[in-house]
């Protein structure tokens, strides 16, 4: 008899957690209808940044690919020419691919990048039903054009050099260049 009473009290003790939880605030998020923001420094999809006038920051140096422990990044550099300029200075990244089947989001590529061209966004929705679609090309990774930016190729800001860009002295495209585009790129 005493055993039965003990067993009942034990059951009550066990269910108490369940019972008490019924009156607590619900933690469930109705994803994907509801999306909660991630932690500020969450390692999500990469982004290739631009200078304020729209030129790309990536110089195609491959240091990100070098740093990558999962061999997820493939880069081919190329020469900027006077007619076709994608970044300040001599070199730009012609081919830029990140394979999200391999990426482990460790962020070593971000640390390696000498121009802060590569950073990570908080975007985490990277699932797909096609493996090929998970190899992101440069156009998938490039940051959208904001107000005042012009899509490359276009010349550097008049009378400036790549050093002015590195020092952050270029704050927008020159009025003489094409009218600023506001349309968002993918």
């Amino acid at each position, binding site marked *: 008899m005493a055993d039965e009473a003990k067993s009942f009290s034990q059951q009550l003790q066990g269910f108490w957690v369940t019972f008490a939880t019924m009156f607590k605030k619900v933690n469930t998020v109705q994803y994907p209808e509801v999306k909660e923001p991630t932690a500020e420094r969450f390692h999500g999809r990469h982004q290739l940044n631009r200078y304020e006038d729209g030129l790309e920051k990536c*110089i*195609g*140096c*491959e*240091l990100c*690919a*070098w740093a990558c422990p999962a061999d997820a990044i493939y880069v*081919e*550099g*190329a*020469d900027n020419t006077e007619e076709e300029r994608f970044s300040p*200075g*001599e*070199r730009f990244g012609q081919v830029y691919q990140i394979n999200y089947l391999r990426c482990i989001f460790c962020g070593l590529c971000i640390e390696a990048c*000498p*121009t802060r061209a590569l950073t990570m966004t908080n975007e985490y929705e990277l699932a797909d039903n096609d493996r090929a679609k998970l190899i992101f090309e440069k156009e998938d990774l490039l940051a959208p054009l904001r107000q005042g930016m012009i899509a490359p190729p276009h010349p550097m800001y008049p009378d400036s050099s790549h050093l002015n860009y590195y020092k952050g002295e270029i704050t927008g495209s020159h009025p003489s260049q094409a009218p600023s585009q506001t349309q968002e790129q993918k």
Partner: protein
Amino acid sequence: MTPEQAVAAVDTVSAIIDGVEVTVPKGTLIIRAAEQLGIAIPRFCDHPLLAPAGACRQCLVDVEINGRAFPKPQASCTMPVENGMIVKTQLTSPVAAKAQEGIMEFLLINHPLDCPVCDKGGECPLQNQAMSAGRSESRFEGEKRTYEKPINISSQVLLDRERCVLCARCTRFSEEIAGDPFITLNERGALQQVGIYENKPFESYYSGNTVQICPVGALTGASYRFRSRPFDLVSINSACEHCASGCDLRTDMRRDKTLRRLGGDDSAVNQEWNCDKGRWAFKYITSRERVKSPMVRGADGELHEASWPEAIAAAAAGLKGKRVGVLAGGRLTHEDAYGYSKFARVALGTNDIDFRSRPHSDEERDFLAAVVGDLTTTYADIDKADQVVLLSFEPEEESPIVFLRIYRQVRKRAMPVVSDAPIASRGSHKLNAKLVASAAQATGLTAQSVILVGERAAEVEGALSAALELAKSSGAKLAWIPRRAGERGALAAGALGNLLPGNRPVVDSAARVDLQSAWGVPSLPTTPGRSTSEILTALSDGSLDAVLVGGVDPMDISAQALEQLLNTFVVSLEISHSSITAIADVVLPVAAVVEKSGSYLDWRGTARRFDKGVEDADLRSDVRILSILADELGAPINLPTVSATAREIESLGAWDGARASFTKREAKAAKSDEFTLVSWRFLLDLGSLQQGEANLAGTAKQARAHISAAAAAKLGVSEEDHLIISSERGSIELPVSIREIADDLIWVPRNSPGSQVIPSLGFTSGAVKVAKR
């Protein structure tokens, strides 16, 4: 003298480096003696093949002789080891370590921090040694000196002056090794920089080596610019397919694509150098003109893509039971040439095979069969020669590494060089060559002398007889140096009408029986076959029905060659679309160098093996395709792979019986009242393996017609004028260059832009009409 005595006879000295005793031959530099102990002293300017310079000061060490120490650290790359020397490197001497660290700091003051965009990044001695011997933080706070980035010192070589550490490796290479002092150090102090002469670009055939030995990224190649990083590259050992010098190469590939080629280290051949053609002419492999799939000419007269079985069946149907000739071309590997040779004898039952897709003669055929297979001259013979005689041979244009070896001896000990060239080329000037009219006028030859005969000797009746005569009478070493990489291998493989593989003469029944039993065939054709020109004539007059062509440009043979092939059944094994594939009935695509393995025999007859670089190449080597074709014809040659072919060649061996006979020919004096044309090819010209590389073509020499001052006066032209050189077939127009040449001779390059001699004039040497435009 026994070998032991020979070793003892070398004077040696002993010293102690970092507490370890080392004994080295007298004159050895401290830096080299330290290397023997496995002690790496950092350095930039030091290079084992260049004279010491002491320019960069990075290799400072503490030195003490017989108890007396030098007051300051000394450069170990300029100081030879002496008896009783005690050397302390950065490993044991804090003074040396601090000195090296200080030098590194000085070098980095003006060196830009642009490693991320520099092609050298990742394989840079400055980067590496800054990590091993430098400080982690810079103390320099001033402005770095900057220059315009990069400047073209030729169309292929780019100079970034900011990055230069003034080691002078490039200028020393150009002067000491190549003999082309086109670059030099200008200005002094912090402004010192590498420069070219005004309006004179760095157009040396060896300019690529400066890119390879530059210890920083100051000199870079335009075609490799920003293409890759060292960790992307897979390196394979390869052999150069461009000439018979036999260079060892390193091919660097990224994702199965060749991105660059570097001179490999073979001390017996190219040392660490190679020429710009071997380094940069590889774009043809990835050209859009490559044939990707088999093609068969349909009833509509057009070529259509076909499956391999279809194409093989079409080729076999056209060849079966027909009288077929084989033109094997001079660019084949030894194994592929052996495939053609065996295919002709076994599957086609003919000796009508010839690898010479260039002007040739019967005298040359006999010379090749009787003499060349047994020649044993090597680069070492050139190194110790008392005289070198060049007959119908321009080493700088036709075999550039042979040129470097001769030039080294000319520079070192003023070795006499004699050439029978009609005009002193730049190469002849560099070699300080004495020009003679013919081989007979070369005097003073001994058993130590070396006679180098080029392939153009076939164009002059009696020239090869005279060369042989000269070698026999003087006891001098003889060598035959063809221009193409595959010719010596094709000769060894018996791709010649009068010769079977391994120097077996066709007319020797014992040699034939030997080969029959090795090949397991009941009989072999007994009559010597036709030469290239005879095959072409026979095709046009109907005494042959079909032809199998492998890698031949008909314009290298004669102006009529293509026309002679028009009305015949042509099976072409080719890498790229060409004038032959345009008229062929069946085109079978074959692999190019990085897609296959194999070997070339260089001019010494030594095999230069190379491996496949592309893992899953779609195409196969010629020999594999010939083997399938032979199966289809019902006469198998059983050569399924390159390695099986190499094994068969090895087991077959060379013939130990009598050689083919050689009959001496007399020189004919051809004299014309007008001008006589003489020509040879430039190294960089319109050759089909140089296609698609504009940066390299930009460094080629400009085509000009060379005439004497007297002839120019007679024609009333100066160097600003143009000449029209014409024959019955056509004409070429070239600017004039007045040089030292006989008054009745005119020299033009053979296959350069604006000067394609064979298609335009119909011959390579002969009487032409010359007039002012």
